[in-house]
């Protein structure tokens, strides 16, 4: 069983993911998956003008701990993630499951104790019906989050209906918010209550641990809300 311990995420402007992936492969990454998302508006003024969408690409690379550390350094050095709005990178501890063909191996479930508790960040993931992501971001911002990344997806497995054999696929928005650990529970509570997650079908909120993050900036003043993701 090959143990790959983390998933390394990068959020950058559209079109830049390929360059980073290439670089990551030079550093030894096996490969990556890229998907499209949207960031949130960096300022109130732009929000008023309706310029709320910032198109992003999210790159996901499975890597070992050492590799992801190296990738963080590369992101800092070569893609200037230390500057605002250049992009962010974060690592979430994931265990890749691989079975040797034919052998049913027992695998241990990772739990909280496996995760080195050093990072000051965590990642809140909210999955809601399409169109409610804005409300989610607003709730999160009200509770102190800086921004989020929205990814469009679809729910799975819905029965066929209608005159045409038409499968209506429920479209979902996935909102990822990276935030300081101490703010996590307050943001999550806020999303939970404002979006009424406790009612059936209204969505789901969960938190993933983040072992390392690069390119995050805390708000200093209200007017210049910084895009985090």
């Amino acid at each position, binding site marked *: 069983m090959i143990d790959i311990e983390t998933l390394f995420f990068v959020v950058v402007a559209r079109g830049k993911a390929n360059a980073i992936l290439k670089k990551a492969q030079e550093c030894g990454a096996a490969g990556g998956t890229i998907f499209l998302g949207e960031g949130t508006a960096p300022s109130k003024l732009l929000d008023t003008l309706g310029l709320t969408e910032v198109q992003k690409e999210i790159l996901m690379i499975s890597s070992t701990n050492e590799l992801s550390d190296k990738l963080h350094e590369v992101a800092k050095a070569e893609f200037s993630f230390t500057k605002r709005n250049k992009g962010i990178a974060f690592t979430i501890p994931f265990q890749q499951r691989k079975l040797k063909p034919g052998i049913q191996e027992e695998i241990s479930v990772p739990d909280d104790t496996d995760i080195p508790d050093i990072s000051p960040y965590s990642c809140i993931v909210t999955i809601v019906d399409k169109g409610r992501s804005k409300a989610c971001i607003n709730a999160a911002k009200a509770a102190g989050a800086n921004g989020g990344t929205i990814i469009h997806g679809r729910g799975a497995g819905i029965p066929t209906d209608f005159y045409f054999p038409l499968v209506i696929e429920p479209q979902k928005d996935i909102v990822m918010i990276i935030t300081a650990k101490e703010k996590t529970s307050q943001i999550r509570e806020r999303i939970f209550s404002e979006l009424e997650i406790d009612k059936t079908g209204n969505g*789901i909120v*969960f938190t993933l641990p983040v072992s390392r993050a690069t390119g995050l900036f805390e708000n200093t003043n209200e007017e210049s809300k910084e895009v985090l993701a």
Partner: protein
Amino acid sequence: MNLIREKTREVTRTLLPVFIIVLILCFTIVDVETDVMVRFIVGSVMLLAGLSIFLWGVDLSMNPIGEYMAQEVATSRSPIIIAILSFLLGFLITVAEPDLLVLGSQIESASGGTMSAQLIVYMVSIGVGVLIALGVFRLLKDVPLSIFMAITYGIIFIFALFVSEEFLAIAFDSSGATTGALTTPFILAISLGLSRVKGGKKSEENSFGLVGIMSAGAIIAVMLISVISGQKNIHGDVAEFLPAKGVFGPIFGIIPSVFFESLMALLPLTVLFFVFNFTKFKIKKGEMSVILKGLLYTLLGLTLFLTAVNSGFMDMGRIIGIQLASMSPWILIIIGFILGLIVVLVEPAVHVLGEQIEEVTAGHIPIKLIRMTLSLGVGIAIALSMVRIVVPEVKLWYFIIPGFALAILLSFKSEPIFVGIAYDAGGVASGPMTATFILAFAQGAASAIDTADVLVDGFGVIAMVAMAPVLSIIILGRVFEHKHKKVQSPVIEEETVVISPSLDDKDYDEQHNCIVVVVNRGFAEEVVSVARNAGARGATIMHGRGTEEKEEEKVLIPVVNIELQPEKEIIWLITGSRISVSVANRLLSHTKLIEEGEISVFVSSTESMGQE
């Protein structure tokens, strides 16, 4: 200002080559008066601003409106309502298209008044409406586009036997006139919305093709008019050409009428949307204000863009055409090729189509590749149009009929998604830039050559531009199919879902795991059904692209060196931690998913708060 900056940068990148080439021509071989030149420069700046604002407005308004409308159409359940609604959509947006009215009056005067412009506008709009309705049924019924278009163009070819050469040109031109700056993005949004609502395996390829179907409606309508009325020949004179004097006079002079045109084009859609919003959608205030802002940007951007094109680019095109034609046919053909190559990329709808392709395929089909193919196609089309002007023996149908015939034949052997993109590209390429700048260039050239007829040769240029990209992109699709490793979507066997009783529904305190699964495209449903059998519940699927792990499996398009990245699906599952192990194990012991789906599974612990 991230996004506005990005849009502006994108528009600049496409506009700059046109700007530079025209200026080079002006300073070398073409002698242009100063005020025309200054107007061209001012026009370019206006075009840059206008197009950027317009594209932004389309993003904010046309896309959501299209999506809502599509949802309304698709979920109305009754085929009669679907037919009426989609007919109405097609009819309304076409009847308001300013280009179509221009074409109508041209035909009216060319036919000596026997056909009124109004009749033509209504006939074409009805044609488009009917075809859009059929196109919507095609999409919902999953009829392959290649077959649908083969039948449609089969009908067109039969009509073509009965109409004169002039009307053949007018008919194909009308397809360009109906696919204007506003209608094309809207129809693109409708078809994207429909295919999203419908979902399923073919949702990707279903996102395209409706614009192509719409163009065919216009062609059929005009041919019908000709057959029914028995009108064969057109005659008439094109007014003597005089470039406008001054710089700001001509620009500001046309703003009111252009604004009115843009408003008229935007109005039917907006009214229809508000009627539906009032009765059906009831969109929330916040979202509504974004859409309203978007509509405003669209109107403003469109006005700026059309003003710039009409006042700054048309005279310039004409003068270049006249002067080049009097020099040497070879220079005319070569410059025509170059202009076609670059001008098409400034078309607003080309930007919109590019974005849509990126969105739908998650970057799997490189837009760069589509753009290059598009420009090559249009470049050749313009060059051939110039040949047609220089050599009177070369007729339009020499190109149009075999071109479409070849495209239809190849469409059966091409990747389905490219067939849709190709037919759309025809309508997309023949937008306002072609209808003004390129057309003026061609008419200028025709007026300088004795054997050419400005009227007859002028018509037909748009037809060529509408045909060439269809063929070139279908050829690309054919190449793609060769190059691409064929991923056959698995047939999902129906299995009874057994949810293990150990699943405790209400236990929120239980530790949950987040499972992220990455597979090749088409396998997501299989993953979900396997995971369900193992006890998982909801899943969310995202669409992305990945890398080929082995160097030798990478697919590279030669010469341009663009890599084709395989499409992937990412599935997020939230399960109880006890179930997650069995879910992961089940997924990883599924041989089909391992061998064909190239599955990888990641598990992380999480704290989950709400369940779907």
